[in-house]
């Protein structure tokens, strides 16, 4: 209706007037506000607590804003808090997590996207069986594989190292990511693929020049899934790494659950927020792309 030509005609213009306080709106926004409060309240408590000093916390009023804002707990959480023998705070875990997450995400997505592409477009002999086995892998409970993997990693000398954990994450991401990419590539019209073959593009040529440029949304989905999944992982981190190489989540647990000394609630809150910040930031910057990617089941050619 933003047609400039139509504007000249004697038609009702502008948005249709609506009553702001209709029953429907009151209900709708009422529910939305209540739900939002329900989710935001814990976050609020965490933020205010992390900005208070310990004496103030001991007063016990967890909902009151800080009388005196202090960033001391944040600094302590980041660079001074002790876990075991290390007293360099969460920063060590943060960098470990970065060194785990980045290569795991890149590797798993690179491999899985090629897997999915090959399975969707180059039906080779046995590809159905291969795919079935891969998907079956997604249904085996992790617990069953925890210990065998410890042994395997030890045998190849990667147990307790970051590379070992990267390997584990890459492998465990494979079934679901392959499925994701396969389904996406399968929805790309087959004739496009045929046209590219007639035009002389090979396996990699079609992948890089035709498929990749069309698949940004699904890559975004995969990146978000993997970054949040791997960043938030606790189980694999605690099993396959050592204190030196613990990812952030494990270190957070060790800080928060440390039994020595007094419980420093403000430091714990700050540490928790810092740890959760990475997935949060990812969601904020990619929210729109994520929704588009999820909705992009059927791409048009």
């Amino acid at each position, binding site marked *: 209706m933003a047609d400039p030509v139509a504007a000249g005609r004697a038609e009702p213009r502008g948005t249709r007037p609506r009553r702001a306080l209709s029953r429907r709106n009151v209900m709708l926004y009422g529910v939305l506000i209540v739900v939002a409060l329900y989710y935001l309240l814990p976050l609020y408590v965490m933020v205010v607590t992390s900005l208070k000093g310990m004496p103030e916390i001991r007063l016990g009023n967890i909902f009151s804003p800080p009388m005196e804002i202090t960033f001391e707990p944040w600094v302590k959480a980041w660079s001074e808090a002790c876990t075991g023998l290390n007293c360099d705070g969460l920063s060590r875990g943060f960098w470990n997590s970065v060194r785990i997450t980045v290569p795991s995400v890149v590797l798993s997505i690179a491999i899985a996207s090629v897997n999915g592409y090959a399975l969707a477009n180059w039906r080779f002999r046995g590809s159905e069986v291969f795919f079935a086995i891969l998907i079956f892998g997604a249904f085996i409970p992790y617990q069953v594989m925890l210990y065998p993997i410890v042994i395997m990693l030890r045998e190849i000398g990667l147990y307790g190292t970051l590379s070992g954990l990267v390997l584990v994450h890459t492998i465990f991401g494979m079934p679901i990511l392959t499925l994701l990419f396969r389904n996406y590539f399968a929805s790309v*019209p087959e*004739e*496009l693929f*045929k*046209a*590219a*073959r*007639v*035009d*002389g*593009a090979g396996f990699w*040529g079609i992948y890089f*020049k*035709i498929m990749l*440029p*069309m698949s940004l949304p699904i890559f975004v989905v995969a990146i978000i899934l993997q970054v949040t999944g791997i960043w938030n992982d606790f189980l694999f981190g605690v099993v396959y790494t050592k204190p030196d190489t613990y990812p952030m989540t494990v270190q957070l647990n060790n800080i928060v659950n440390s039994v020595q000394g007094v419980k420093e609630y403000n430091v714990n809150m700050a540490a928790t927020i810092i740890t959760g910040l990475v997935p949060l930031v990812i969601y904020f910057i990619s929210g729109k792309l994520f929704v588009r990617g999820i909705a992009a089941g059927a791409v*048009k*050619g």
Partner: protein
Amino acid sequence: MNQMTNPAATSVAVKDLRLAYGSLTILDDLSLDIGEGEFIVLLGPSGCGKSTLLNCIAGLLDITDGQIWIKGRNVTWEEPKDRGIGMVFQSYALYPQMTVRGNLAFGLKNAGLPRGEIDKRIARAAEILQIQPLLDRKPAALSGGQRQRVAIGRALVRDVDVFLFDEPLSNLDAKLRSELRVEIKRLHQQLRNTMIYVTHDQIEALTLADRIAVMRGGIIQQLADPKTIYNKPANLFVAGFIGSPAMTFLKGQIGERDGVRTFEAGGSTIALDQYRGEVPARGTAVILGVRPEHVAAGHVAAGHGAAGHGAAGHGAAGHGATGAGGAAAKVEIDEPMGSDSLLWLRFAGQALSARAPAEHGFKAGDAVSLGFDISKASLFDTETEQRL
């Protein structure tokens, strides 16, 4: 099939091709020789294996058995790009992230052609197809007709020997379809390339083809020029598939009157002396296929032998028509089709259609006398369904 082409002049030869998905055989023992510069149309109902055959020729499907030869070379196991073919698809299949220019250049870049040559070829193709103003647009910004032009251009720039079209016009509306149809014909006359064209639209087939291969169930039913296909369909299936409005079939048997073989059905007889083909012995059960335009309906009041006159003074039907021996037919339905009308009649207890001029003056329920142009009709064996 029956006509052997000189191997030297053969552009595409399919030899004993078999294609199966597991135990499901789609094409079995299919052979097809296509001459240099010939325009072949593969025509058939949905699912009969036209695309499958085309994909086998293109090298996009691994065949189960047999050979494909293009330009005297056995290309059975060669990659599509090495076969000297270009292909145009129903859904256009343009690369969405590239401009039109990028789409045209893609194959050439893959072939490692120098920049200057690529530009030259794109310019030429763009001129032939009149898509110069579109070169820097993305496919999403093009209409269906423009997209299909670009898709044709993509085959054109590659300078291929053989063009393969898989229902290139099926996604277009009727007007664009007829426009682009003419354009493809012009392109063929200009380039003289071999073209293999898949469609299930018989108008496209009849207008474009040098020869039509009518397929059903993975088998070529008849391979012949459009005239032959239309006038002498090899069997019942081809006869019923080609022609719109469709041929009608009358069941009956061969009789004889005054030394002339006749077709008898429900007490009516039609003399077969004009039939171009072999009329079987008396008493044989046959099916007579006549096209609506070869049946003329006349007013009964005009008396005997008037079949050729009156409303039936229409086209070839009146000419050389044989009287139906006073057999009465009744008009059941009148379907006006603009320039003329299609009359649905009941003749000898069976449905029969006839073409009549728009102002034929018949009403439903009217009795009419019929004239048949038997020289253009077809007799089929009831058992084998083959033309006699």
